[in-house]
């Protein structure tokens, strides 16, 4: 069991957006988070990644198992593709970047400055970062934004290989990736309005 989430409530801007989210994510499994814009996918992923506290509920995950890929790729424009990747590889303990570059079809661009990449090429670089983390649980927020069909397929292949190697993946996306995965529809977990019994921030509740 790589990750278990129980009855989680997450909030943004002091307002609960999702409540009662529970799921389990085993090794070799992928879970796709679905839901309309604004339902709270990003908020959920940031909470799971430890960037913001949960309002209620439990998150069980091995320490140092999670690698998170956000909307923004954290790419330094003045560094080359290889340098960008090498930095993250070092931060996560010095894995080899060559394999990651090859896997995301970045070999030809390795010495190019990241400023001179197109939107899709940047995104491929952002995804290659996951490969050098060596982490088991990949959490990705709309990873295929700006990617063309070929790159989406490439990415799906990379995720499949990661799963096959015992990893797991949690993916928020609007499009079909062609990965065999469970789908978790977040719509039913939409937080009730406070008047209907939903949760507010702790401070606001203290007034009740």
């Amino acid at each position: 069991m790589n990750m278990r989430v129980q009855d989680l409530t997450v909030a943004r801007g002091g307002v609960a957006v999702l409540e009662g989210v529970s799921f389990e994510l085993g090794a070799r499994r992928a879970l796709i988070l679905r839901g309309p814009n604004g339902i709270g996918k990003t908020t959920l992923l940031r909470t799971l990644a430890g960037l913001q506290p949960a309002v209620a509920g439990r998150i069980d995950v091995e320490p140092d198992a999670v690698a998170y890929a956000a909307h923004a790729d954290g790419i330094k424009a003045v560094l080359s593709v290889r340098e960008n990747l090498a930095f993250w590889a070092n931060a996560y303990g010095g894995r080899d970047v060559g394999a990651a570059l090859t896997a995301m079809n970045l070999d030809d661009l390795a010495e190019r400055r990241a400023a001179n990449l197109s939107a899709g090429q940047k995104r491929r670089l952002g995804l290659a970062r996951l490969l050098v983390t060596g982490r088991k649980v990949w959490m990705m927020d709309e990873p295929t934004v700006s990617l063309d069909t070929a790159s989406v397929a490439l990415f799906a292949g990379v995720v499949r290989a990661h799963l096959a190697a015992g990893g797991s993946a949690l993916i928020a996306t609007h499009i079909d990736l062609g990965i065999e995965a469970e789908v978790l529809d977040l719509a039913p977990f939409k937080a009730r309005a406070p008047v209907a019994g939903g949760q507010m921030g702790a401070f606001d509740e203290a007034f009740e």
Partner: protein
Amino acid sequence: MRSLLRRDLWLAVRAGGGFGLGLAFFLLVAVIVPLGVGPEPATLAKIAPGILWVGALLSCLLSLDRIFALDFEDGSLDLLATSPMPMEAVVAIKSLAHWLVTGLPLVAVSPVLGLLLNLAPEGYIWLIVSLALGTPALSVIGAFGAALTVGLKRGGLLLSLLVLPLYMPTLIFGAEVVKRGAQGLAVGTPLALLAAITAGSLALLPFAAAAAIRVNLR
């Protein structure tokens, strides 16, 4: 860790000459003050220690908002926060990088600017010593301010407002060292206080800054 230091230095050097520009600003302050104040050598000699320290402080200040802001904007800070590096180490290393590209060069060129401002000959050695001892504090205090303001657009001025009061003790004792040194008086007390401030900020502020960043990220 070392890779972060290397990256930050590299970014500073490549993206528009980090080194040169900090220096250039210091130089410019040392030049515009006489322009504004007037050229009489006696007046200049008198205010030189204070102005040089104010110049050093302002040129640190100008580059502060970039310590974390760039990483925040492109999403690196989120990713660093979820990486195995402790945020305290990130702050410490980024302050070190800031000092290496801003503080250290200032120390090195300060004697030249002393010349422009007519500093008394006895003052030079104390100018160097006090800057070498004080600028690390400026960097780490600045990193703390930058951490507090990291998410805010137009944080630059707010940052100055938060940081300048914190800079004052460093400024006062630093300038005092030079002033006394230039007059040939004993500098022991202000120098000791300056060292204490630097040691204290180096020991404590990275933790405060790391906490502030974590809060700002959520």
